[in-house]
């Protein structure tokens, strides 16, 4: 799933001796009494494609703007390449940003837009022309150099904005919802292109997005934010498979959450009595909780197996229910099954055949189960 991970095989964040390229230390930002960003610590490493993911208003854009220098932290420090950014204005930071609105200069042609940054650096005219042409080539809009922004489509504008943010060869590129204005097909295609460009240039990218699929597809690591705070930072698969909180489990993908009380703890297993499920849950991890603790267990929809009603009950991680909703998504179908407790459970099945061997339909009774290693226990 994570195509972006290819560029960083060595995973610098797992190496305690690795020097982070961007260090965010206890950064907060208050607007009046409201903390948009609240005590964030982050390390971002050279060459990473780092995604800040969260719902709107979670503080991800404010954090990005503090990296660019448009906002000053109310507390905490930001280091880029070892330099404290506190007194460094935006125009002197080794950072370029691609704006959500693209912010293309409407009175300049595409070529002039891209050349603007180089002119500020005092680069020689001939070199500017070369580098602008090279950059327009990279984002495949060479033919549009003489157009004005209002003569371009959304996708073309997005490319101009990207070219303009990359042309100065910044060490750190900030992207604020870069694909937000594109339609789905174009967005998916552009996601791969962005990753390829990033790998080719070797720059560090920090992207802000509310689209978890986008973050998962492109990023080496994802930082899930909620209410100004960091909930979890990890590789996409890590965040998806091992969320550390109900919030992350719910925000990334779809999660079935069963509440319950711990009844048995051993070194490699925990048994939980869950009224939601109407039975016991066994998870393949132990130790971390005490008996009697109130926990939730998360199971992803694709990890649930379905069997005909009346199949033998394994005694845990299983229940019977009635199919209430079916969402046909093309490649998979999502089934909503109602348990006796009233709890609804979602699972997916791949639509492998044009006529499924045991087609499920509304009001069918089914039994489902999952393997203990596929349940993740979340302490509340």
């Amino acid at each position, binding site marked *: 799933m994570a195509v972006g991970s290819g560029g960083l095989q060595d995973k610098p964040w797992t190496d305690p001796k690795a020097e982070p390229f961007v260090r965010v230390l206890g950064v907060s930002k208050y607007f009046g009494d409201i903390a948009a960003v609240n005590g964030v610590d982050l390390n971002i490493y050279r060459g990473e494609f780092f995604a800040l993911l969260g719902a709107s208003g979670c503080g991800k854009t404010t954090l990005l703007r503090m990296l*660019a*220098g448009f906002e000053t932290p109310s507390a905490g420090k930001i280091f880029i390449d070892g330099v404290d950014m506190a007194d460094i204005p*935006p*125009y002197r930071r080794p*950072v370029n940003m691609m704006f959500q609105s693209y912010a293309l*200069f409407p009175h300049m042609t595409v070529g002039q837009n891209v050349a*603007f*940054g180089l002119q*500020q650096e005092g680069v020689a005219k001939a070199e500017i022309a070369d580098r602008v042409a090279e950059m327009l080539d990279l984002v495949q809009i060479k033919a549009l150099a003489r157009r004005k922004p209002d003569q371009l489509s959304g996708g073309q504008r997005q490319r101009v904005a990207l070219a303009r943010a990359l042309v100065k060869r910044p060490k750190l590129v900030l992207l604020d919802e870069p694909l937000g204005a594109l339609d789905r097909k174009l967005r998916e295609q552009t996601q791969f292109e962005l990753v390829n460009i990033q790998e080719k240039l070797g720059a560090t990218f920090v992207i802000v997005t509310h689209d978890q699929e986008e973050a998962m597809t492109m990023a080496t690591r994802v930082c899930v934010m909620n209410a100004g705070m960091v909930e979890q930072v990890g590789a996409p698969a890590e965040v998806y498979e091992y969320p550390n909180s109900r919030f992350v489990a719910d925000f990334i993908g779809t999660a079935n959450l069963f509440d319950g009380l711990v009844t048995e703890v051993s070194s490699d297993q925990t048994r939980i009595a869950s009224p939601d499920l109407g039975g016991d849950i066994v998870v393949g991890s132990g130790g971390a909780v005490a008996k009697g603790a109130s926990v939730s267990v998360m199971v992803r929809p694709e990890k649930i197996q379905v069997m005909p009603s009346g199949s033998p009950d394994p005694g845990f991680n299983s229940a019977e229910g009635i199919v209430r909703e079916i969402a046909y998504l093309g490649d998979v179908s999502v089934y909503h099954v109602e348990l006796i407790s009233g709890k609804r459970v979602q699972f997916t099945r791949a639509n492998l055949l044009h006529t499924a061997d045991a087609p499920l339909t509304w009001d069918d009774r089914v039994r489902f189960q999952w393997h203990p290693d596929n349940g993740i226990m979340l302490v509340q």
Partner: protein
Amino acid sequence: MRSPAKSFAAVVRRLHQPGAAGRLTALAIPYGWLALFFLLPLLIVLKISVSESVMGIPPYLPIVQLAEKAQVQIHLTFSNFALLLRDNMYVVAYINSVKIAAISTLISVVIGYSMAYAIARSPLRWRYLLLMLIIIPFWTSFLIRIYAMIGFLKDNGLINNVLMALGVIDQPIAIMYTPTAVYIGIIYSYLPFMVLPIYAALERMDPSLLEAANDLGARPWKAFLRVTLPLSMPGVVAGSLLVFIPAVGEFVIPELLGGLGSPMIGKVLWAEFFSNRDWPVASAVAVAMLALLVVPVMMFDRFASRYFRGR
């Protein structure tokens, strides 16, 4: 900008389409208004400017006259226009008017731009109050405001009294009845027409454009020169036309505040009409002024709109 002929052709074409009656009524109002209050008076002035001056009421000869033996007599004369060139006074007044209007416009751009910029960059809750303060003087009659200026500018007026009290000067400076007073009067009166269009242009600007310029390495003043200024030029052009055009023909301000030293064409026109009762010459002055102004102003507007808006 479409030529009137083309617009007219478009109107005629539309008349043959369904719903033409409603459209015709809707179009008749603006076109009728323009014909009645703009084209017709202009034609009358044009007619008078080529008529012969006489003593009487009205003080000019009709162009077409029924003479004896059912003959039609046509009196057409261009001597009024010839006089404008022959008599140095008119040429001097024209040049003087254009000069005063141009300098006033230039100063208004500088003052007006800074005011508009300050308003556009002030917090939202202040912005409308500040805009109101720009507009409020319009609630008082123009004439009264110009009279009030006399109280500021005269020898024992506010400006001189304050400067003397502060010890900056011992003798009052002569401001009244000098070109300086005319400049002050024109700039004071027309400044809102400069501020408002520039403000509109600045306010419309996406603030992220400046952030983008900063982000790409432009210091604030460079970002202003390369982004803010060019994007607000349509406002500057509109404001300049709104100040320059009426300032050239201004009559009240030079009459009340100015001296005899620098005649403006508006004053000359007034004198021809009311003192000399020479309507044909006065009309010729007006027509010449129109011709001299409209052509360059239209060209300027055309150029400006193509440069800044046209793509």
